[in-house]
């Protein structure tokens, strides 16, 4: 289970919409409870450093990765995972996502459908790699706790 509060969700959606038709990407920081529940506290937006077609691929530079690890240390947060967008594609990991995926990380995918039929229709889902290197969906809680 990963908790993405509306304010954080809003940041993710804004990045995905603003970067459309390219893929956006960045890091998720927060806490992990003893039962495995993750709470996203902050995000770090980074450049999609993919050379070539950024509408269908993303890549994060090693320097940005090291910055993210340092950012987590500085704030005493855990680096919980990565987010990226799928412009005009569902929020389901692709084979490219799976091949390059790391264990432990939550992979939050924001689908932005923006075409003749749909205008900025957003879906957000999260995925975790299992022992067999396959993605399993992680439940996303994106409503406000009162």
């Amino acid at each position: 289970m990963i908790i993405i509060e509306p304010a954080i969700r809003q940041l993710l959606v804004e990045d995905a919409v603003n970067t459309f038709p390219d893929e956006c990407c960045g890091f998720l920081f927060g806490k992990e409870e003893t039962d495995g529940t993750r709470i996203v506290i902050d995000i770090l937006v980074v450049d999609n450093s993919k050379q070539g077609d950024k509408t269908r691929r993303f890549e994060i530079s090693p320097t940005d990765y090291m910055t993210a690890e340092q950012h987590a240390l500085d704030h005493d947060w855990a680096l919980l995972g990565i987010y990226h967008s799928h412009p005009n594609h569902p929020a389901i990991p692709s084979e490219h996502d799976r091949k390059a995926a790391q264990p432990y990380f939550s992979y939050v995918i924001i689908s932005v459908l923006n075409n003749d039929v749909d205008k900025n229709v957003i879906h957000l889902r999260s995925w975790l790699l299992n022992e067999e290197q396959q993605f399993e969906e992680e439940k996303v809680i994106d409503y406000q706790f009162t």
Partner: protein
Amino acid sequence: MATVIIPTPLRKFTNNTARLQVSAGSIQDTVQELTTNFPDLKKHLLDESGNIRSYVNIFVGNDDIRNLQQEKTAVKEDTVISIVPAIAGGSPDLAAGTPDLATGGSPSLSFTREELARYNRHIIIPGFGMEAQKKLKAAKVLVIGSGGLGSPVLLYLAAAGVGTIGIVDFDVVDDSNLQRQVLFGIDEIGKPKVEAAKRRLQSLNPHIQLHIYNTHLNSGNALDILKDYDVIADGTDNFPTRYLVNDAAVLLDKPNVYASIFQFEGQVSVFNYIDQQGNRGPNYRDLYPTPPPPGLVPSCAEGGVLGVLPGIIGSLQALEVIKVITGVGETLSGRFYIFDALNFESRTFNIKPREDNPVNGKNPTITALIDYEQFCGMRAVEEKALKEISVGELYDLQVKGEKFQLIDVREPHEYDIVNIGGELIPLATVADNAAKIATDKKVIIHCKVGGRSAKAIRELEEKFGYTNLYNLKGGILAYIDEVQPELTKY
């Protein structure tokens, strides 16, 4: 002790430790120490052969070890080593079952569903397939000349899905083009060829990029225009441009797929092509070291061409362009193909690089583009002696009723199609008919566009010392255009 920073995803294999101390030595020693102490790390850091996985980056300080001494990079007491997983991914490819476009060393390209449907008959050919189609999409081809040869070349390359096509032509569409230049229709007459071609090709295939150059290719602009393309297709109709394209392609190290046509005969070859063994094939100068004397080989405008011939030869040229791009099959590099439409005979000759090739032989003398009109003897001749008269000046003489003699050196069947009252003395017979040519007044000599009449004047001046001969600039066609548009053009 040196420090290793373990990335978050791998910390579950290091008892949740972010920073580990390791002994000094090299990166190889560090990896060995880590995987010995934490065996679960091994499959994440090393592949089956024990090499560091391609998606694992190791940094020493701020430098990737790939830019240092790789695994042999030294690790000192105060070195900070970071293991950085490559983070990447992307949307799924559209078509299920298509190969992964991001791997295999082929261009990283994707095809839309429409493109896959369009290119299906290529993709399903064994030995061609998706790989070749991707190469076509990634390729940039410059087609020089959008006339008889350029029409089929452009149509087939655009239809085949060559991703970027450049077109060079300075000409406008003329009704005498439509007999063979199948890119154009009557609506395009008078319009620049490159613009008409772009419209036609874009409607044929909207998935490709077209760049047009409405200009005369010359020594000043050739390198600049050619440099952005992978393959050159030469469909020009004159020797200066042919040598220019050849030399520019050799200087820029690009393959040049060549074709030419004349009356009933066509030629095709692939020049300056490097085969899979790394051997460079011959170029146009290995075949023809020097151009023929000016006027000996007329252009299509002068000599004519059977309309279907450029369709045949241009299609063969397009085929060779596709083979050069995709590496499928054996190209015509090192071979010279000739097709004779009259007796339906094809011959293929072997050609070899010559040591005395002035562009890329043993002692090259041409290291930059030269003046090709001068090289082909055209400018020198024109500058030397030829006196010219414009159709406007001829019209003035006619209106004023001044005394002059008008001679037409075309063939009788051309004369029958249209004439402007000149005395018919075909080029081959001018010397024998010198007695009919006046010496005491202006003699204006014309042909269709000015080439044969220039030759006639040179011959008459050389043999008989005439000084009163004038060449009609632009020939009968220019006269019809400017003075009598109601007459038949051919």
